[in-house]
């Protein structure tokens, strides 16, 4: 066996290298500096057929193999890691799940334009509480007629904002862990689908990374990818392939850094000879080349296995882990070879040094890579730890709340609806308390968060407080960092606790420590621009909107001129929502009355929490009395 690429593969490498040298390399510094996404380059790659290298020609692809795809990512990354990951995320993450799990219609509609490079793809799995552990997924998709309603947020999404087609993962069956997750194809531009800020990253700055926000996004049923509940499987299968892409990116970055520092070392003369011939430097170069060769073997071998439909999950993880660690070592030493020059902006090794770090982190951290590899080698650990169930809504910090959110209609309509509800609850806005009443004694508080913006906007808060007959409060940063109000006005676990009736939170996102300070509030009202801010899950009434627009309207609606002094505070009652039955089946044993609760599983029989009864092995028996599975029925 001769470990060498085919002629066709090498020819492709030459083409892409030429393209990268000409179209990417000269601009990479500028893109890095400006956080600029190279749209023109992506378009040109599409025209050359490189956006769908491993997909069949009938679906708009190039019909080439996985190694060719790996070579493409490697060659782009050799000059710019950011451009490399654009291709990797598009091909492996955005397109592959549709190729692997899509229906014929979905492939025609979405894979073809993706593979042709007419559209860019992306993949939305990661969330604030679901990183390495996808079981923590909180984005939900609720079936409603002929579509699903998607709500939630995704973070750190490569190609986010630039991509046209997104494969998004959401919980369709809450409470049963990863088995309740499903995958959806979502198009940019659909109502309610927006993007958060573009992240300001350490490296790969030419690639776009953004937050995806879903607010009642209607996804047609035909855009469900695979079956309901198959999402986690689709995600894991996709990431297996994605790791070959990231491994190739890491390999390319290492290759680029190695070549660059070798050239420099041969050029830079000290002690009357090129530093490359100082043993200290020559050994570095020797080590780099050795490690890069080893990494390349791992990457191409994993790609070859995927191409031949052999199980490759472990090998892809090995390749990703090893190649990214090599990228870190090589870029670090490359900067060292450059000496002081390597530490300057504009030097490619400086950028590569920063670009390399992410390859150890994304598409599964290298720690998770070792988990994957070890699980292939060792099997399941004897006792699994209890994971947090997906979709099991975290308990509201402020306790049960009405959570009536006014999203629809004009700002005035939202405000009118809110004021009508408050009045119906018994709030009398003809009376009020002084604006400087201590928080702990105040019956009402209007509170400002960072979302209020500049200090002038505190006038909006003061006016609203006067109109609502309330004292003024704030979140911790507004008092401590911005210093808009004295430190004794901040509400929270570590600040003042609010025990009164009405709390109006303006531009407060709802940090845990803040929410813990308003647990006792009779009614919590939230005004915030971000519909997914935690405050909305902890409020009775909420308006999604800009404080600059909403607060003046609310002030006008509540203003009754001079306030009468408020009578002694009478605590307002809050309605208690009825606790409903869980939406999963509990099965009960005829032999002893034991209940199988899928939330608990049967750890002693290696049944993980989240396993529905019908997915228990046929030979599973009651853990208490050994009655067979068929002697269970629904409780």
């Amino acid at each position, binding site marked *: 066996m001769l470990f060498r690429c085919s002629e066709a593969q090498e020819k492709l490498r030459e083409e892409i290298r030429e393209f990268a040298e000409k179209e990417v390399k000269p601009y990479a510094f500028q893109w890095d500096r400006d956080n600029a996404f190279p749209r023109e380059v992506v378009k040109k790659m599409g025209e050359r057929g490189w956006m769908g290298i491993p997909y069949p020609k009938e679906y708009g692809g190039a019909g080439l193999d996985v190694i060719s795809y790996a070579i493409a990512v490697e060659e782009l990354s050799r000059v710019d890691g950011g451009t490399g990951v654009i291709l990797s995320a598009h091909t492996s993450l955005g397109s592959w799940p549709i190729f692997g799990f899509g229906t014929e219609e979905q492939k025609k509609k979405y894979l073809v334009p993706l593979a042709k490079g007419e559209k860019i793809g992306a993949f939305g799995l990661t969330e604030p509480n679901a990183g390495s552990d996808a079981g923590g997924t909180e984005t939900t998709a609720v079936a409603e007629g002929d579509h699903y309603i998607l709500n939630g947020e995704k973070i750190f999404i490569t190609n986010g904002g630039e991509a046209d087609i997104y494969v998004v993962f959401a919980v369709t069956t809450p409470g049963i862990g990863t088995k309740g997750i499903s995958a959806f194809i979502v198009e940019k531009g659909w109502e309610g689908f927006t993007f958060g800020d573009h992240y300001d990253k350490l490296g790969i700055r030419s690639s776009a990374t953004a937050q995806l926000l879903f607010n009642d996004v209607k996804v047609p049923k035909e855009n469900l990818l695979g079956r309901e509940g198959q999402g986690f499987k689709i995600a894991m299968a996709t990431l297996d392939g994605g790791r070959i892409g990231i491994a190739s990116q890491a390999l390319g970055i290492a290759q680029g850094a190695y070549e660059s520092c070798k050239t420099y070392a041969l050029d830079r003369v000290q002690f009357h000879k090129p530093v490359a011939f100082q043993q200290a430097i020559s050994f570095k170069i020797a080590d780099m080349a050795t490690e890069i060769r080893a990494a390349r073997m791992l990457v191409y071998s994993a790609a070859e296995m995927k191409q031949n439909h052999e199980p490759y999950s472990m090998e892809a993880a090995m390749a990703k882990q090893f190649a990214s660690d090599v990228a870190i070592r090589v870029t670090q030493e490359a900067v060292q070879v450059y000496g002081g020059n390597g530490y300057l902006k504009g030097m490619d090794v400086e950028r590569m040094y920063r670009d390399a770090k992410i390859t150890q982190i994304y598409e599964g951290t290298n720690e998770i890579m070792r988990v994957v590899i070890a699980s292939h080698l060792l099997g399941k650990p004897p006792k699994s730890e209890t994971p947090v169930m997906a979709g099991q809504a975290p308990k509201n910090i402020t*306790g*049960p709340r009405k959570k009536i959110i006014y999203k629809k209609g004009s700002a005035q309509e939202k405000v009118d609806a809110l004021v009508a509800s408050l009045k119906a609850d018994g709030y009398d806005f003809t009376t009020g308390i002084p604006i400087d009443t201590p928080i702990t004694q105040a019956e009402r508080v209007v509170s400002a968060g960072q979302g209020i913006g500049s200090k002038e906007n505190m006038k909006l808060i003061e006016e609203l407080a006067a109109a609502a007959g309330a004292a003024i409060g704030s979140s911790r940063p507004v008092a401590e960092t911005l210093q808009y109000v004295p430190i004794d006005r901040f509400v929270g676990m570590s600040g003042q606790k609010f025990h009164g009736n009405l709390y109006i939170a303006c531009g407060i996102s709802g940090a845990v420590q803040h929410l813990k300070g308003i647990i006792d509030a009779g009614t919590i009202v939230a005004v915030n621009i971000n519909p997914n801010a935690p405050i909305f899950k902890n409020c009775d009434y909420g308006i999604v909107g800009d404080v600059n627009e909403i607060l003046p309207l609310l002030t006008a609606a509540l203003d009754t001129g001079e306030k009468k002094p408020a009578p002694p505070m*009478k*605590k307002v*009652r*809050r*309605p*208690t*929502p*009825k*606790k*409903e*039955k869980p939406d999963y089946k509990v099965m*009960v*044993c*005829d*032999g*002893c*009355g034991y209940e199988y609760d899928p939330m608990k599983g049967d750890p002693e029989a290696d049944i993980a929490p989240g396993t529905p009864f019908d997915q228990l092995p046929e030979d599973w028996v009651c853990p208490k*009395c050994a009655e067979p599975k068929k*002697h269970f*029925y*629904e*409780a």
Partner: protein
Amino acid sequence: MHIVREVTDHLYWIGANDHRLTLFENIHPIPEGVSYNAYVLLDKQTVLFDTVDWDACRQMMENLEYVLDGRALDVVVVNHWEPDHAASLQVVLDRYPKARIVSTEKGFMLMEQFGFRTEGHEIVKVGDGDTMSFGDHTVAFLTAPMVHWPEAMVTLDVTNGALFSADAFGSFKANDGKLFADEVNYDRDWIDENRRYLTNIVGKYGPHILKLIGKAAPHLSEIRYICPLHGLVWRKNIDYLLDKYRHWATYEPEENGVMIVYASMYGGTEQAAQALASKLAERGVTNLVVHDVSNTHVSYLIADVFRFSHVVLASVTYNLGIFPPMLNFLEDMKALNVQNRTFALIENGSWAVMSGDLMYRFLDEEMKQITVLNERLTIASHLKEGAKDELDLLADSIVDSVRSAQN
């Protein structure tokens, strides 16, 4: 001397009443006693349905011999192997060496475990839907797993409509001469003890009761007599009892009303419970009971929890925890599957009030579908006049909730 009553032609009650036993299952007080019911059918063959507790053996044997009047016993049907019914079987077998024993497979497993000697007796295993004829009478067997033991079955005599229902439809309280439910004022004198029996003994197995009722549904019109192993025989108004069973088995309250249970060391919490009771009654909620958890056997509390829609728990904090008898009550409710109720909480403590949060957590996390009202009354040692508003708020909240449950 025999004490026997005729249920219907050829069918006799040959059980016994027991007033000497203090604790049923050595846990539940039975101040009004209990009956152990056994029945004999005189057909071409003679058939005994279950026996009685060891203490009542002699009476039953005298009854049996009287009814058989010199005939041999041909068949013993054992619907339930719990010793309060099966204990006297050994004496019956020794006295009638030819008697066949009819039961379920699991029943015979328990027979082995309890150590019965059955040499020479034919063992006849029956399962769901099996029938057996004794001459004129034919019976059908229906298994009733986990009502309230796994081996239990019920036997229906399809000829005369007598259902031998094992512990289903049983009750505490001695029969004391009466045999039929229509011979007493059941709703006044019996239902409370019936409820206390069912909810404490079989309360956990609501789904199994429903399954049994579902299985029996096609035969309901054939049932003329319900002959349980404790309490009175039903031959009229069976729907009254079935309706109660449906509430208990589905954990739906029988009545909109409030049960206040307090745990008080020196009367502070008791006072709050009484103050609340007064406020509730003042507001028209008079279907209301108050229990001291320390002085009320938990079986009575369980019975009332199954009855009422609303429960107020008022507990002092004890060693930074819930007062132990109150915790015991909570544990018992959990064990008996209590669900679909609305609770309100009163907590007391003189330095670190913990009981409210702990009770809330137990109700919310350990039990099923328990709604806990937001309003909670917190007392530091003693309820002061200044707490009037808070007490009113709690009372209003409970009254609103009771009223909305009515609608």
